């Protein structure tokens, strides 16, 4: 079982790496890190802040774009090229295919984020000439960004398991935007009354909470993050990803592929 998932994941990773769009995005992210240095040069006293804010924000946005645009095509492309039938005619279960695809995409994004992170740290060294102890918190922010990518990957795959690529992209991106404002949605729910309150509260808890995973501003200001937050965010992302992947498996398992 694990070998089959591994092979599907490896092929997904290789396919993604071969994708020119992926390389272009990495190059662009590095270019943006260069821009961070430039902005840092012309900013007074906030060079480090600009580099961390701009670098990690760019890293997040590029990762999300990659996760959505590759994730939405993972199933549909296989059906379109009819390679899915070849895979499923072998002793590969449908859920293994979905989980393998997820692992491959997640691996791609982790490698991608690592490359971009090297760029961010390089830029930081350039403007600060040395690393300080508070810079270690950037690793926590990076870790949270990767958790964010896992959720986005699962959502892209979920929508991809039953919808067209275009609609999947729209759904996934909408959820990303809504999830980024989920704290506001909960605030709105606390101000509302009656049915509206319950509806808003329910929606706020069901949509992914990306705002709690976004600690870029905190680490840019060298504010320490509690260990509780790291542990709870980790479990939150893992549980949410598992729930969405379970949904994707349930749908794909029953989907008519003829």
């Amino acid at each position, binding site marked *: 079982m694990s070998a089959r998932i591994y092979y599907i994941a490896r092929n997904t990773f290789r396919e993604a790496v071969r994708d020119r769009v992926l390389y272009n995005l990495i190059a662009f992210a590095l270019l943006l890190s260069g821009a961070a240095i430039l902005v840092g040069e012309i900013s007074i006293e906030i060079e480090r802040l600009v580099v961390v804010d701009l670098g990690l924000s760019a890293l997040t946005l590029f990762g999300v774009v990659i996760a959505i645009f590759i994730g939405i095509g993972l199933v549909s492309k296989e059906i379109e090229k009819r390679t899915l039938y070849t895979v499923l005619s072998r002793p590969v279960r449908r859920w293994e295919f979905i989980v393998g695809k997820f692992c491959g995409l997640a691996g791609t994004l982790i490698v991608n984020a690592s490359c971009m992170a090297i760029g961010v740290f390089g830029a930081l060294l350039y403007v600060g000439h040395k690393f300080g102890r508070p810079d270690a918190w950037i690793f926590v922010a990076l870790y949270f960004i990767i958790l964010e990518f896992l959720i986005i990957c699962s959502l892209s795959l979920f929508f991809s398991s039953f919808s067209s690529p275009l609609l999947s992209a729209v759904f996934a991106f909408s959820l990303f935007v809504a999830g980024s404002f989920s*704290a506001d949605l*909960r605030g709105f729910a606390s*101000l509302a009354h009656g049915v509206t309150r319950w509806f808003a509260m329910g929606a706020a808890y*069901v949509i992914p909470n990306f705002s709690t995973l976004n600690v870029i*501003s905190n680490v840019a200001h060298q504010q320490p993050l509690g260990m509780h937050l790291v542990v709870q965010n980790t479990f939150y992302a893992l549980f949410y990803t598992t*729930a969405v992947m379970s949904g994707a498996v349930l749908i794909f398992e029953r989907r008519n592929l003829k």
Partner: protein
Amino acid sequence: MTSRSVTTVVASACLVVSMTASVLLLHRIDRLHPRATLEDVLYVSSPKIVKRASLGFDGLMACIYWTRTVQYFGSRHMERAASFNELAPLLEITTALDPNLLPAYQFGASFLAPPPPNGAGDPERAVQLMKFGIAHNPDDWHLYYDLGFVYYMELKDYKDAAEAFERGSQLPDAHPFLKILAGRLAEQSGDFTTARMLWTATYESSHETNIRQNAREHLKDLKVDEDVTNLQAAVTRFGQRNGRLPASMEELAAAEHLPGVPVDPDGKPYKLDADGRVLVQNPDSFPFITQGFPPGYKAGPPKFQ
């Protein structure tokens, strides 16, 4: 059981358990750092930057920032906070994103200008906010009223207050009380009647719960201030007539031919201390009163529901 059925059962169980666990965890995370949102908001405190960063979705962003402003003020009030440092930037960002968002200006007039713990204690920025609002909504009389209100109540600048009311009264659909207020301020300033008119106008012209309740509290407390002033004058009159202070409120009421012992808006009788001072029984119920409390009493922040 077929392989497909097993997968369905396992995946369904995973879905339910994981979703429940994620909701519970999110609830815990919220309790871990409940104020993070508002702190994050103000890492960018420049209205211009926020407006540019909104990529044209100014209206939506204004709604979000307006919600955050109300949340911020509400939560700080609940905590009985002594400062509201983020209120001014939040209101400035909100109105920069949507200069036509009129409730934000009214909120600013009511809660940005008064000193802590009733507000942010920043009347100058409140005036700037009102002027910004008037520049973008020159035909709305409410903004002239709000500007005059801040000048009158917080800055005690009766000349500018009268001018603001006068300018507002000249608008085609202005409420008639603006003309009356402008006239009254030209004649006399700082009296109970004018203050009562202002708070009544605020109460009647606003739909926002916090603002209406704040106005209601002020009207109630204004009544106490007026009662205490009148009763204190009665005590002085009694002393001049009888060469001594009244022994009790009952004696004072009888001497002034009052129908009974005067009571405060909560129905509790006013007290008279040994030095002839008129006092309310429970000053905590009247957070905005300026007289009628025992010497050395320190008022707590008002309690909004």
